[in-house]
C-alpha cells in the first residue's frame, strides 16, 4: 500500500481508545493524519474501558478530549475531529481522502455501514466487535472477504443480543490493539485481508481464522452500489 497515511477512526469509545492511542504513538509507522468521528460525551460508566478519558473528562465531548490526548502523545500528528455519527449521507465523503478506516462502533448497523462505505470507496476496513469477555477483529481489503462475507446482514430479529451487550475493559483493549496492529501491518505493505481474530479473555484464547469471499455476498458481488439508509435501520441501530 502506498501513502497509507490518513486514517479515519469511527468511534472514540472502548475500541477506539486503544486504536487511537496506539496509532498516534506509533511514530514512524506511516500514520501522519487521523480523523476521528464520534457524537458522544464522556460518561463515568465509560471510564473502565475507554482509556482515552479520565474522571475529569466526564461530561466533555469525546472527540475534543481524544484530540487533546492524541496531540499530547504525538505533537506532529495531524488530527481532525468530526462530531456526529457515521451516517450514510456523509460516509463516502468522509472516506474520500482517507486511505483506510478503522471501525470501533458500538452497534452493528454502523459496522455494516463502514464495511459497505469502505468497499464502495475502495479502501481497507479494519473492524472489531466485543461483548462481555470476548470479541473479534477483521481486516477487509477491497478485494478480500468483507464483513458481509462473515455476517450476512444486520440482525433484525434478535435485539436481545444488543440489549445484553456489555464489555469488559481489557477485552476492548486487546481487540483495539489487534486493530491497530492490522493497520500497522497494512502500512508495512502486508495484506492481511480476510484475517479474523477471535479473542476470549475468560478462556485465555486468541485464535486466527480466515474469512473467504462468499459467492453470494451482495457487497463483494457488486449488488450494493449505494448506502441507502434502510439498509442500516436495524434493531441495533440506536
Amino acid at each position: 500500500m502506498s501513502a497509507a497515511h490518513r486514517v479515519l477512526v469511527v468511534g472514540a469509545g472502548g475500541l477506539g481508545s486503544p486504536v487511537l492511542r496506539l496509532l498516534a504513538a506509533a511514530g514512524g509507522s506511516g500514520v501522519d493524519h487521523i480523523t476521528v468521528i464520534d457524537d458522544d460525551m464522556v460518561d463515568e460508566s465509560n471510564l473502565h474501558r475507554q482509556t482515552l478519558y479520565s474522571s475529569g473528562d466526564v461530561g466533555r465531548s469525546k472527540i475534543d478530549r481524544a484530540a487533546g490526548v492524541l496531540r499530547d502523545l504525538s505533537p506532529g500528528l495531524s488530527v481532525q475531529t468530526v462530531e456526529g455519527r457515521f451516517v450514510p449521507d456523509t460516509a463516502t465523503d468522509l472516506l474520500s481522502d482517507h486511505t483506510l478506516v478503522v471501525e470501533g462502533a458500538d452497534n452493528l448497523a454502523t459496522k455494516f455501514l463502514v464495511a459497505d462505505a469502505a468497499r464502495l470507496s475502495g479502501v481497507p476496513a479494519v473492524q472489531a466487535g466485543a461483548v462481555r469477555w470476548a470479541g473479534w477483529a477483521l481486516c477487509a481489503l477491497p478485494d478480500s472477504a468483507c464483513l458481509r462475507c462473515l455476517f450476512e446482514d444486520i440482525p433484525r430479529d434478535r435485539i436481545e443480543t444488543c440489549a445484553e451487550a456489555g464489555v469488559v475493559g481489557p477485552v476492548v483493549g486487546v481487540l483495539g490493539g489487534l486493530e491497530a496492529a492490522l493497520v500497522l501491518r497494512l502500512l508495512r505493505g502486508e495484506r492481511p485481508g480476510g484475517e479474523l481474530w477471535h479473542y476470549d479473555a475468560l478462556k485465555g484464547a486468541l485464535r486466527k481464522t480466515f474469512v473467504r469471499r462468499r459467492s453470494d455476498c451482495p457487497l463483494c458481488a457488486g449488488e450494493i452500489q449505494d448506502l441507502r439508509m434502510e439498509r442500516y435501520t436495524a434493531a441495533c441501530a440506536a
Partner: protein
Amino acid sequence: MAVTVRIPTPLRTLTGGADEVSADGGTVAQVIENLETNHPGMKDRLCDDKGVRRFVNIYANDEDIRFLDNLETALKEGDTLSIVPAIAGGASR
C-alpha cells in the same frame, strides 16, 4: 460421536456459563439437535427456518461450514465446532 462445541459468551446463559460443551452427532445439524436437547433454546439462537441464521457463523475445525456442506457437514470424533455470532461493542458493564 462426540465433538467439542465452543460457546460464545452471548450463548453461555444456555450452557450454565460453560465456554465449551460436548455434543453428539455425525453432522452439524445433528450436533445442533443434540445441543438443543441438552441446552434448550440453543437451536433457536443458531437457526431459523432457512438454516443457520444469517448473523451466526459456525466453523468446523476453523472452516466456515458455508464452504463445506453447511448443516450437513460431516463431523468426526474429536472435531471442534465454533459458533461466532455477530456482536458489537456495547454499553458499560
